[in-house]
């Protein structure tokens, strides 16, 4: 018995010991020092947090986000067709299968955009915590950082506004304890809130940044966003009564920027339209107001886009040629008419009923055509494009039995960097895309001015003089200079690339004075069509056209409707071109002008879904 007591005593001690030590045994979680305190006590760690606001700005192509993995957003419209059957979302939109339920919210951006709004406010809440920031222009870097963040709040809310209309305005960092029954603000309230942030930002950001900070927010960027925002706000979708005051705001905002750029000689129109999209750093293409913040040599990123998004299938290239421009789009490029001595005198719309036009289908078109679209028999990377058929045979770039080949008869050339123009190993590119460029601002201005005063009147009364809608749009066309070959001096000539192009392509027009002007004497409606056509052609594939169609309420014509392509029959050495129907698309005007809000958000917040969803 004595032994037993001893055993029990030992057991009790062991048990007691293990009970107290087992809590410790279970304390395995690492002691975390990377808390928010740790981040925001240091300038560098804090700016790293802020800089992701740049990183998450929506890209030009909605890669993986609903317009096909490598599809441009324009594939939702009559500008292009997405070829691959893999990314099906744009096809989904094309056939009217665009749904509100979370499972099929095709172009869902809601949460990603609000995540960045959270980031902006989280940063502003903590900006006072770090003290080791450098000086910029003689004041604390915090000043300009605040400016950058306010711009971003504006930018991200504009991304929401243009998709969903008025959205819940979150102006703080939400927590799990927050009241989530936040109503939707009206379109005007969101617009005003964005303007408020842009005004704050404008006062805090500089006109220019030093070399290494190129790309950060400048006053011009703030004004550019304001120009776009107010144009959208004045457009038929958001201005059903055609309130002229809204057009005035839009025109004023664009004019402010145009005057600012003119006075300071900043961001001039780039003379070389092709290379605005094909080569060099954004800083070498000064027309770019706000670049996309991708690295100069992000090999995997850019070459990927080229291979899958633009490249040609076949020939060891293994591209998908995903974004095929349509005949609808190609027909938008005007045909230039020449007088007997070879001077360009006018430009007229392409006309399928005009046998001259059809017989010389790709001759003397707006030069932007040659830089935007690849078409049959065009010279491209050491050979001519072959999208013809001939009995049971097809050209190298066309095969109706293979899904990757174009259905429209065209491939996309814009945004195909010169460095990647190879078949086998496209390699890396220095292409950086962008969010704002001067050309857009001109078109914003021209559109708003026309709605206000017509094409040839400027009643804004600016000290900088008269700038009518027509003046500005022709300024844009003047830039499209294509000198005669003998006038191009050599490799250093700014128009040398025109010479190269003309050596490849004898259809290429000679335009020593740029595109013929849009004539005067048009009325407001005629000019509006000219202006919108110019916009589609000039800003093709720059993520404008889809939203332009929506804001102008032209979805039935340009998101729905018939998609045409070209049928090219090879006949000996000649080609016969006919227009063919590629597909019929569906657009439901009762709902598709605004995106559906994710259905769960509607349930949770008790807000109204957009109509029709």
């Amino acid at each position: 018995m004595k032994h037993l007591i001893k055993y029990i005593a030992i057991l009790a001690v062991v048990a007691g010991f293990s009970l107290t030590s087992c809590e410790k045994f279970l304390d395995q979680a690492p002691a975390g020092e990377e808390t928010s305190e740790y981040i925001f006590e240091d300038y560098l760690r804090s700016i790293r947090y802020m800089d992701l606001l740049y990183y998450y700005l929506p890209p030009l192509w909605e890669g993986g986000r609903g317009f096909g993995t490598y599809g441009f957003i324009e594939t939702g419209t009559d500008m292009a067709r997405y070829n691959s059957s893999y990314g099906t979302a744009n096809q989904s939109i094309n056939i009217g299968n665009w749904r509100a339920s979370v499972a099929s919210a095709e172009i869902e951006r809601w949460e990603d955009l609000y995540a960045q709004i959270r980031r902006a406010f989280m940063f502003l809440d903590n900006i006072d915590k770090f003290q080791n920031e450098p000086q910029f222009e003689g004041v604390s870097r915090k000043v300009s950082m605040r400016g950058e963040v306010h711009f971003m709040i504006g930018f991200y809310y504009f991304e929401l506004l243009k998709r969903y209309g008025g959205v819940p305005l979150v102006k703080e960092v939400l927590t799990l304890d927050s009241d989530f029954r936040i109503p939707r603000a009206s379109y005007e309230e969101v617009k005003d809130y964005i303007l408020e942030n842009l005004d704050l930002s404008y006062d805090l950001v500089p006109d220019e940044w030093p070399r290494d900070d190129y790309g950060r927010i400048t006053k011009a960027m703030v004004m550019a966003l304001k120009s776009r925002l107010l144009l959208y706000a004045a457009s038929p979708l958001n201005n059903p009564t055609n309130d002229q005051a809204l057009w005035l705001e839009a025109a004023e905002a664009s004019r402010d920027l145009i005057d600012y750029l003119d006075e300071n000689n900043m961001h001039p129109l780039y003379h070389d339209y092709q290379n605005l999209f094909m080569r060099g750093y954004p800083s070498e293409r000064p027309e770019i107001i706000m670049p996309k913040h991708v690295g100069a040599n992000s090999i995997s990123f850019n070459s990927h886009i080229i291979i899958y998004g633009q490249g040609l299938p076949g020939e060891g290239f293994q591209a998908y040629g995903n974004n095929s421009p349509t005949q609808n789009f190609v027909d938008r490029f005007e045909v230039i008419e020449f007088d007997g001595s070879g001077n360009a005198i006018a430009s007229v719309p392409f006309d399928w009923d005009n046998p001259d036009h059809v017989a010389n289908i790709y001759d003397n078109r707006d030069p932007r055509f040659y830089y935007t679209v690849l078409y049959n028999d065009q010279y491209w990377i050491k050979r001519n494009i072959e999208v013809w058929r001939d009995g049971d045979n097809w050209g190298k770039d066309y095969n109706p039995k293979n899904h990757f080949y174009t259905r429209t008869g065209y491939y996309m050339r814009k945004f195909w960097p010169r460095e990647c123009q190879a078949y086998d190993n496209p390699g890396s590119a220095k292409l950086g895309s962008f969010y704002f460029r001067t050309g857009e601002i001109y078109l914003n201005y021209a559109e708003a001015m026309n709605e206000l005063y017509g094409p040839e009147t400027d009643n804004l009364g600016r000290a900088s003089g008269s700038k009518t809608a027509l003046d500005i749009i022709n300024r844009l066309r003047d830039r499209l200079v294509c000198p005669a070959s003998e006038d191009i001096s050599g490799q250093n000539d700014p128009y040398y690339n025109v010479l190269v192009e003309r050596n490849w392509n004898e259809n290429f027009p000679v335009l020593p004075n740029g595109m013929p002007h849009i004539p005067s004497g048009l009325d407001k409606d005629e000019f509006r069509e000219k202006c919108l056509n110019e916009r589609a052609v000039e800003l093709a594939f720059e993520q404008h056209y889809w939203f332009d169609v929506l804001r102008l309420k032209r979805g039935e014509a340009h998101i729905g409707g018939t998609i045409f392509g070209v049928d090219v029959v090879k006949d000996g050495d000649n080609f016969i071109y006919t227009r063919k129907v590629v597909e019929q698309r569906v657009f439901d005007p009762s709902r598709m002008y605004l995106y559906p809000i994710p259905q769960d958000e509607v349930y949770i917040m008790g807000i109204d879904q957009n109509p029709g969803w």
Partner: protein
Amino acid sequence: MNEPYRIRVMRGCRIFRILLACFTALFVQMQVLPVYASDSPLEQQRTIRGTVTDETGAPFPFVTVYVDGNTTIGSITDDKGEYRLTVPPGSTICFAFVGYKTLKFPLTASDVMDVKMEPEMKALDEVVVVGFGEQRRASVSAAVTTITADEIVQSPVANITNALAGRLPGLTTIQTGGQPGLDAAALYIRGRGTWNNADPLYVIDGVERTSAIFQTMDPSEIESFTVLKDAAATAVYGTKGANGVVLINTKRGQEGTTTVSINSSVTLQQFTRYPKFLDSYESLKLYNEALMNDGLDPVYSEYDLEMYRTGADPYRYPNTDWYELMMKKVAPQYNSSVNIRGGSRTVRYFVSASYMRQEGQLKTQPGRVYNPRFAYDRYRFTSNVDAIITNAFTLTFELGGSLTDRSDPWEQMGIFHNMNRLGPWVLPATNPDGSYAGNSEFPDFNPLYLIQTRGNDTRLNNSITSAIKLAFNLDKYVKGLSINGRVAYDSNFGYYKGWSETQSTFQLISRPGRADRYTSFLTPTFFSPSYSTMTAQRTVDALGNIVFNRRFGDHSVRVQGVANISEYRTGTSIPYNSVSFIARANYGYKNKYNLEANTAYRGSENFAPGRRFGLFPSVSLSWNIQEESFMQSLTMINVAKLRASYGRSGNDYAGTRFIYKEGKWTTGTSARAYFGEEMGASLGYTNEPEIANPLATWETAEQINLGFDLVVFRNRLSMSFDRFFERRSGILQTPRSVPGILGIGTPDLNIGETSREGWEFDVTYRHELANRVVLTLRPNIAYTINQVVFRDEPEDADWWSKQEGKPIGQFMGYQVLGYFKDQADIDNSPVQQVGSTPIPGDFKYLDYNGDGVVNEYDRIPIGYTTMPRLTFGTTFGMNVGNVNFSVHFQGAAQSSIYVSQMLMWEFYNRSKVQEHHLERWTPTTHETATYPALHVGAISQNHVQNSYFVRDNTYLRLKTAEIGYTLPTNMIRRLGLRGLRLYLSGSNLLTWDRFKVLDPEVSSGTTTQWYPQSRNYSFGFNLNF
């Protein structure tokens, strides 16, 4: 099963009814069978008679009476216990009955021979394995089911999990694939009670071990396999017990002469089922039709089709049946094991070694550097040694280990994906010059190319399990007291070696008037061998146990206390630690009433202090009615026992580690956003982590179990019925009532609730007839249904979008009303906003909410879930002398399967068509069509989750069938052996199901990366000496 039954299955008759019909038929047959004539006219013979009584003196019918060594002379006792038998002089008469000692008496002078049978051992004295110990079956009051080794060993399967299908009521097995080395079935106990991890806990020889260790075990080393189902049985496992517990005990040494047992078998494997695709000609005719349905022009001309049909130019117009081309007729599998069992009074041992090799079903050629085959080798050994050091002290040493070697082609399931996807018309396998074919759309899709040239990877895995156990009997100090303890150490180490390369594929380009040439695709890359250690796992687990077990007159008392601590490390991660204390008390009165109460106090490192430890109590009660005096007259009832239990157990699955701590803000220098004139400057990034949930803890299951056990007819028929109810709460889930505008990941909260209920019924019938004919029948059936009670869903949500009130994983979809007859039908029906604009022949869906539009708001629950509600199995065995025969059926009902995309839909992502697409709707076949109009587009009215594609997945399988022959004893003795048995067996032999396209156990979804399950034919022997 014969043809009429099959037809009834197809017509939707519930399978279990058929099973019952089968059982009844067999039962009737058995009653008819035992008719033996014993009137021999030979003059020397004597006729003896007598009465056989049982231990209580009551007459004992159905006792087999036979002459020793002569199986042709025998009889059975009638209902008065009387028998008559004519026997040769000098015979020895044997009296036998299952569960009773076989008695032998030489003939005496008297012709009357009355015999009193003695029970061999009462069924209730059997020992049952329970958590942290063993109990007499009589005192078990929880829901526990056991099968023994004999039943498992029947079928030589590569993975032991597949031997369990349909053997235990309440254990659901789902084998979703057959890849060598990866063909384990998932086990679920009583279905699914949570949408989080629902895997049971595995306890091997008393130590919590991974399912991977269990899956490498050889069936021949297993003594018993026990499933703990209710909370009364699993509460002792605390935070790990809620999904049920599987206890596996290996064999141990026995005192006596050493026996050596050798098992060896050769198995031929075949795919049970793989999709049957149409040939090029048939496919492309349908393709043209589908294009026209989509308003497009056909792309294959009459000439093209004719070329495909005739096969005149197989390189330009191929017709490649990838399965036919790549599949072996049969693939072998070898199993062999040696078990040595023996011991003296002081040392007992069991040693086992086994080897298994399973080869893949696809043809491969060894390459220069690698062999791209599918194959799996497993070496395994076990050694259990018990040393009785003194009367009061036993030392046990257990060591187990396995070495596995799995080889796969580099592309693994990508090969099957492309075999299932790539149309027969797309590519020949090889070109005229022998190179692998590709084209620009499908440069690296050729399955033959993929398996043969892309490389290989091998995974070597070493696993050791070990334990040292000490047991002290302290009777010397306190009668009935014992303590024991153990330390277990398990280690697992995996090693990976891979080879990969890329070779080019080539396309033959032949144009009229030009010489043939080849275009190449893919840039060749050289071998890139890669090596890595895959996994390194280590578990240390220590346990101390004190037991007081004593009987005081009519009262028996058992008290137990356990302390258990374990640490599990994997890779470089922070250890997973757990501490638990268990207390258990049993009280029994006169074998009649048993009361057990137990509780675990267990903690996990994954939760915050204060949320870490939980108390998991349970209480259970049983009443052995047959011990009551009023039952004594009912001698036909051997056991009648009522059981009831209530308990609580937990599931500590947490998804995220240390969910309670504020996450780490990640900050890094790698570039995200770029700045600078050359876009080369980037400062790095900092990201906010998900919000933490400091209150996170385990989910809790509360269970009630009511059970009834009945053993009647002298232990011949036993039955067990259980009814259970469960409520789970605190299931971790992301709250759905937090909107996306929060802008950051929301942590999982303990908010989900489910309920579950069901029943299980298990019958064992064993009948020993004269002349050594033994029949056994063991059917079982179980039913489980679950329901989501709460899942934090937005209040305003429509009912269709909520999971509340529906089973976990309920399929949702559109209800198909039929096919659109014509355009007028479409125009007059609710607007279908489902996919593309419908055409005649597409599905017409129900406008459930009646708003005139069919859209996502009209999706309703359709079918069941993938987890069958009803599972059943039955074994029927018959021994006739030296021949034994057994069949085992297994099946499931009230479950659904949804296979979509490439294996179900036509031309999805350029994939193929199958036989079921031939029955499509066309204007001429609209009356008989069983499939809607065909489309080529990825989006169509038809290609959505709907009541057509969510299929009833009821199936019944002849899981195993075996015929064996045991060589007669005298022949064996001459060979110096103790026993030799030869057998032929097969598994997955026949399947009756309603899905028919693929194996019914294939997982739901977009399955194409799927290695089909195997049907096996085996020949083997067991040798003992």
